[in-house]
């Protein structure tokens, strides 16, 4: 009986270890670490949470809103599972910045001061700087102006962007 109990305990512990390793391996591919609590998700894992700032008139739903269990701080995670890039796109940094603006206003000192962008194989921790905040608010204002504009011109010289663009066939300024 002693041997049977020891074997049973060892099997259970081994299965537990396998589960821990599998969870750790998964966390390396998702960007959602094991030491965080997911508060909201727009990726179908939990109910999404729409954050709004009525003063700046910006709103958004981060893919994951998580709380670091060690520090108690909250930060957003934006995932782009099909993106293979090894450098962070400025557009993704600004989208994340918008979530950070919203978290700053919603959570105040509980906001961690950074966010995470996860691509297929790369991960970026983006600090929320005053410069990023300024760029985000300026982009929001530019969008409001664009909605009233008679025409808006291409804002880059990157051919690859045009190749990947969904409206390139309708765009007279396309580089593709």
């Amino acid at each position, binding site marked *: 009986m002693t041997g049977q109990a020891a074997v049973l*305990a060892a099997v259970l512990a081994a299965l537990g270890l396998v589960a*821990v390793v599998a*969870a750790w391996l998964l966390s390396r591919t998702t960007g959602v670490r094991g030491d965080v609590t*997911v508060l909201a998700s*727009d990726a179908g*894992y939990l109910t999404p949470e729409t954050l709004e700032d009525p003063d700046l008139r910006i709103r958004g739903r981060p893919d994951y809103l998580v709380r670091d269990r060690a520090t108690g701080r909250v930060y957003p995670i934006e995932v782009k599972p099909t993106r293979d890039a090894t450098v962070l796109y400025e557009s993704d940094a600004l*989208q994340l910045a918008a979530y950070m603006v919203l978290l700053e206003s919603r959570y105040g000192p509980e906001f961690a001061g950074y966010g995470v962008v996860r691509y297929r194989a790369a991960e970026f921790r983006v600090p929320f700087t005053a410069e990023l905040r300024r760029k985000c608010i300026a982009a929001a204002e530019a969008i*409001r102006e664009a909605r009233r504009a008679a025409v808006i011109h291409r804002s880059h010289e990157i051919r690859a962007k045009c190749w990947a663009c969904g*409206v390139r*066939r309708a765009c007279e300024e396309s580089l593709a």
Partner: protein
Amino acid sequence: MGGRGSRDTNWVSASEIGSYEYCARAYWLEQVQHTERPAATGSRLADGTGHHRAHGRRVAWQRRLVRAAVVLVCAAILVLVVHATRHWRRTTHPIPEFSL
């Protein structure tokens, strides 16, 4: 988020900010001029949503595995404690032998 932000001319969504930064003209063509994307692009968008859902499922599995690990390790400890308790009782309070 983009569509909803476009309907209200004052509110701007985070995804719109990302789209506008990617290319201001592409944003304007899509959201202001309502230029239709080709069907292939539409299916790529659907793929993107599918990938997000798949990501959510992976995170859900990750959490389930952690919970399973906790349960399994607790069960292992419980087995050892129950067995040790029985063993201790047997050695400290031996059952008297029955004899006729």
